[in-house]
């Protein structure tokens, strides 16, 4: 009879998606944002994206080669980190600075912790935070969208913060404003997120609680003093909230594994964003809100372990 039967442990039937497929799915979901960034910021955007992706992939390969580990650049995670990093950088950034950010994202954001799945902080945001600390001026210099020349401008949030002027919601929605490559066009990001939700590559709890918290808190502020605080819509679509809530905070590695924990994570991010934007020294707080909540993830996991089936609440 039959020889060489395959032996493996149960289950013998598995769902199709693999981790590289999920990574690729997120990359596909970012394509609308990539197109929007190239549409608004032209060749600069394109080159910065290429350089950042090259930076992350190259760094990952070199790091793993040096540590004599299996090179895993094919899993798509390094590419995704590079892409996400580029999308949260200003379009006028010199390419070498973008490259440096990419190197740092992989080295101190990911590989130093042991690679994929082991890191505490979102690697792309670590790359950006590093650049923010090192080249603060470059990271806060913005150019006007839609034209080939670099004409400097300010982001809607800094216009709001320092000049008390509000950019129209339609502009914010379409992305025709100053800002990082991929953050300006809210509609492109939302299209991508809907794709991820349909494919079940993303859990809805973090985006919902994050955006919901920002919506509620900004509404409260607006209702108290409409003259002083911007509309809730402005908070939702200005700055990095959409890319942060839909693509950064949802990074599975650095967000809680429990359902309750994911709500807490999102609410925490939302509160921090409103605090930083309203009372902080910086116009934008999405990056720090997510990095701070990343730090709380292990703690949140520990305190939100669900009561097991048939277990008793203590």
């Amino acid at each position: 009879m039959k020889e060489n039967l395959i032996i493996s442990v149960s289950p013998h039937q598995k769902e199709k998606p693999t981790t590289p497929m999920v990574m690729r799915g997120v990359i596909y979901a970012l394509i609308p944002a990539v197109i929007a960034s190239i549409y608004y910021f032209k060749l600069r955007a394109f080159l910065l994206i290429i350089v950042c992706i090259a930076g992350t992939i190259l760094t990952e390969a070199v790091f793993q080669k040096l540590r004599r580990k299996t090179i895993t650049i094919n899993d798509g995670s390094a590419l995704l980190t590079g892409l996400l990093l580029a999308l949260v950088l200003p379009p006028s950034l010199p390419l070498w600075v973008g490259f440096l950010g990419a190197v740092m994202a992989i080295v101190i954001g990911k590989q130093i912790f042991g690679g994929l799945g082991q890191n505490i902080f979102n690697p792309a945001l670590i790359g950006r935070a590093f650049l923010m600390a090192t080249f603060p001026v470059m990271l806060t210099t913005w150019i006007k969208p839609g034209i080939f020349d670099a004409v400097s401008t300010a982001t809607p949030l800094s216009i709001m913060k320092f000049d008390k002027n509000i950019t129209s919601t339609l502009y914010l929605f379409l992305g025709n404003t100053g800002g990082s490559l991929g953050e300006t066009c809210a509609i492109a990001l939302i299209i991508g997120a809907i794709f991820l939700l349909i494919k079940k590559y993303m859990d809805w709890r973090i985006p919902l609680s994050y955006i919901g918290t920002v919506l509620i808190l900004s509404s409260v502020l607006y209702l108290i003093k409409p003259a002083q605080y911007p509309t809730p819509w402005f908070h939702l679509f200005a700055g990095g909230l959409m890319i942060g809530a839909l693509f950064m905070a949802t990074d599975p590695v650095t967000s809680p594994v429990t359902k309750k924990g994911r709500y807490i994570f999102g609410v925490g991010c939302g509160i921090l964003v409103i605090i930083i934007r309203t009372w902080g020294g910086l116009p934008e707080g999405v990056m720090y809100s997510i990095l701070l909540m990343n730090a709380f993830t292990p703690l949140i996991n520990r305190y939100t372990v669900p009561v097991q089936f048939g277990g008793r609440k203590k």
Partner: protein
Amino acid sequence: MRLKTFKQGIHPGYYKRLSENEPIKRCPFPKRVIIPLSQHTGAPCKPLVEKKDKVERGQKIGEADAFITAPVHSSVTGTVKAIEKRPHPGTGSFKAVVIEREENTEEKEWEKGQLDLQNISADDVRKIVREAGIVGLGGAAFPASVKISPPKEKPIDTIILNGCECEPYLTADHRIMLEYTDDCILGLKIIMKTVRAKRGIVGIEANKMDAYELFLEKTKDEKNIDVKLLEVKYPEGAEKMLIKALLLREVPAGGLPMDVGVVVHNVGTAVSIVEAVRDNKPLIERVVTVTGKGINNPGNFMVPIGTPFSDVIEAAGGLKDNAAKVIMGGPLMGIAQSDLGVPVIKGTSGILVLTADEIDIEEEVNCIRCARCVDHCPMYLIPTEYVRFAKGEAWERLDSCHIMDCIECGSCAFVCPSKIPIVQYIKLGKLALRNLESKKG
């Protein structure tokens, strides 16, 4: 109508069409049977026969002196050839009685007897069920006599007859429900009477509408028996999930269904109980689904216990050339076999043959903590932590996150995009914890 179900769980591909319309056929008697002395949860049996002894079909050949155990019987008439360690489909290898069948013998069949439900006593039923070696036929093979002997302080109000058959591919229970409907219901009544339960529920998944309608029709005059339709979801047929879905009761962690006043029996077990009580027939054969894309003629077979897998596969037209994996049970909890000489045992609900293109042994990659396992675990556990702690050999921490409550249904590994064999790590962790416990003494 909203179907009853539990929280979380998975929706695998079911592939039941392959065999669900195939009536139960008799698998020919093999030349020899291998009857392991342990086919159940509990104490293994000691042989009651010796080499060269003549045995009759239905004769008891192994027994143990314990509460949780079940005797074994010969499924053929013949001569004991050996009592030795043989490959076992569940435990690798175990001591078994090998019986060579006498050629050209007319094997005994049991006539349908008469049963007066009013005049049987609970103790008689328990004795008969115990003597007949009946165990749960859903796969776990827990001795049925134990289940119908709840202690006095744990009154049972409801008996659930489990007709979910939530494992993909398997259709044995489905066929039993269609072809032995009356016996299923009679079995339920016997069990209800034995444990003095007031209520009986038959739970059937919504992918077996024909069985559901048949049961509705046959129980329409039964005041105490309800037939309920359940959502098609895995693991709907796991005892704890089923009780939750039907009665909204949660079996306490580490507890048994009887702790919430319930006893669950598989439909096949109920039929075996009827055959034992009414016809005096021990458990010597069972319905096995032989299926999968790697088998020529998938179907459902009445197989004598102890028949080698190879004979059963032959009865189903043999393996196709691209057959690559043979599994005892369904694809989610079944056990892959390396040797087709292993016998069908009391817990063999199916023999599933997968083809080479259905099996992709993907390499395990790093966990990305996507928490799909957490979101699908029917026991509300955190499987990703078990992998982490098992890899780090942090056994005590496994205990503190309730690894022992895991029912090993495999939902976590089914959804894992990193293809981590989570169930394997959990089994390893449980074993290590048990070893630690026994060392502590």
